[in-house]
């Protein structure tokens, strides 16, 4: 069993990185506008399917990895403008319900287009082997995923803390009215912020399709762990989402190894414990990113 431990821990970290990046996207959107995006998983699935269709038509995996999320961002911004924006001034649960409805529609549409069962989506040959790490072998694709997700998170952190636009975004989270009064177009801010969250979901969606499979409901399977990640890490904390995601990834993979019956429930137990000790989550502050 101890031989299984190291790969399982690594798997847990990769899984945790997925949860973290989905949670960061959710948290971005939730923090600025109070929108709980239940359709986040649907955007991930869409990115996966688009990448699948692109590769099927002969484009390279690398092109699909960037192009599919970008297309999904366009879809996301259209959805934001047309459907989510009218709800910003209303109570948050309305946007939750609305996006829930969108996810139901999306699921059925994917079923119509790409079939009710999963489709095979494999990484390119270059990433298909394993890497010898000395004490164990680990699939190259999973290492690639970990690296790609880390780069995405670092890029986001850079964007939020070092660019003017990112600073405005964080300022808007603290006081939207003030930033509007100072001359920033907050509607653009909302749209870009939503697009950013969807872009992260898109990247995660394509990568997850290669590792965890692709079916009409595959993205939604990552949604619940991402919610728990947001709660554990603390809403509005980038760092919290990373730590929360990794914690959950480890908890799930370790319980899968030692107490399989508890593997799904483990993250909820973790969440309950964190809530008892720190009701705002591990790194929860009131709405400040970075």
């Amino acid at each position, binding site marked *: 069993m101890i031989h299984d431990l190291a790969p399982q821990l690594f798997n847990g970290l990769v899984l945790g990185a997925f949860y973290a990046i989905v949670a960061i996207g959710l948290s971005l959107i939730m923090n600025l506008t*109070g929108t709980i995006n239940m359709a986040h998983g649907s955007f991930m699935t869409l990115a996966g399917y688009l990448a699948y269709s692109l590769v099927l038509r002969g484009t390279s995996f690398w092109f699909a990895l960037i192009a599919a999320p970008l297309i999904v961002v366009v879809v996301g911004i259209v959805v934001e403008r047309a459907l989510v924006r009218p709800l910003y001034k*209303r109570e948050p649960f309305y946007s939750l319900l609305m996006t829930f409805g969108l996810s139901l529609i999306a699921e059925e549409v994917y079923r119509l287009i790409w079939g009710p069962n999963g489709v095979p989506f494999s990484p390119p040959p270059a990433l298909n082997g394993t890497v010898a790490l000395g004490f164990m072998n680990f699939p190259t694709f999973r290492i690639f995923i970990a690296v790609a997700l880390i780069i995405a998170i670092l890029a986001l952190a850079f964007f939020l803390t070092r660019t003017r636009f990112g600073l405005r975004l964080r300022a808007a989270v603290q006081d939207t009215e003030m930033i509007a009064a100072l001359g920033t177009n907050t509607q653009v801010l909302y749209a870009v912020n939503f697009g950013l969250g969807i872009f992260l979901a898109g990247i995660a969606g394509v990568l997850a399709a290669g590792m965890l499979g692709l079916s009409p409901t595959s993205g939604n399977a990552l949604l*619940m762990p991402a919610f728990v990640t947001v709660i554990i890490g603390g809403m509005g904390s980038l760092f919290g989402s990373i730590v929360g995601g990794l914690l959950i990834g480890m908890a799930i993979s370790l319980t899968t190894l030692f107490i399989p019956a508890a593997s799904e*429930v483990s993250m909820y137990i973790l969440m309950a414990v964190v*809530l008892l000790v720190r009701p705002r989550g591990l790194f929860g502050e009131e709405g400040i990113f970075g």
Partner: protein
Amino acid sequence: MTARSELIVSAVVVAVLACAPFLSPLVHLDISIVSEVLVTALAVMSANLLLGYTGLPAFGNAAYFGLGAYGAALSVKYFNVDFVVAVLVGMLAALVGGLILGPFLLRRRGIYFGLLSIAFGQVFYFIAYRYTDVTGGEDGMNFPRPPIGIIHVVLREASFYYLVLAVFVVCLIAFRTVVRSPFGRTLVAIRQNETRVRYLGLNTDRFIFVALLISATMAGLGGALFGLLINFAYPLELDWHQSGYFVLMMILGGAGTVWGSLVGAFIYVIGKDIISTITPLWQIFLGALFVACVLGFPRGIVGSIQALRRGGAQTFADDDVNAAFDANAPVEIGRGV
């Protein structure tokens, strides 16, 4: 609504419901579908108490509904209890669920409360899904409908319907009494401004906890009756999707209104029954209904009728909790997080 017109409307609705076993064959509806409407309405009422009146996004009520169904199912299957005991076990299971989750849920308000409800509710889903030996796992579990103890009769569909109707009417009266009591008024006040209620010296956590327990027990009652109606319990009853459907029905009928839950449940259950026999794309209709309701019809049917009767005036009058659900009612973004 004046007391007299309310009495008339109520009497008419109950009279129509009492005739349902004779009316439903005329429109080719099985009477068990009407029973399903009523038990679903109980669960919608439970969500309404929390979200419609207290303002807490109740996205976990399917957990209590499912606990009720599984409570009844397991007690019948493994202990051969009679009908009444099965219902009571279901309600108790849901109440215990509320007692366990309450202290966690009470820690936050606003969307966070919604997130916590969704997340903790899933625990019960996974328990039912995982413990295949006891619960039948994903396939669910069959169980026979038990006889009612004293009279030793197994209810058939029409008599089952009348039992459900009687339970529903009692619950509706109880619900109306609760939301119009000082306790219910306090819940509405919490919805409007919890900080102020706290400054008035009231322990709002305690009020919310009691509301949560009432809500859980009521959802459990609905779930237990639902289980006994279809003689089946399955994990998706506990899933957060089901919670979302309850909230949709609440909005559709009219959040913060006494009759809205019945209207919403009626349209949803009957609509689902009809549409899913015509087309396999029921889920697209359902999703579109979500989007349309939220964007264009947030006050719901009963709420809109009430507003019309008042000449369209948007007031927070004494009996109009629903006005808060008007699209023009302003809310500060991120409130209560």
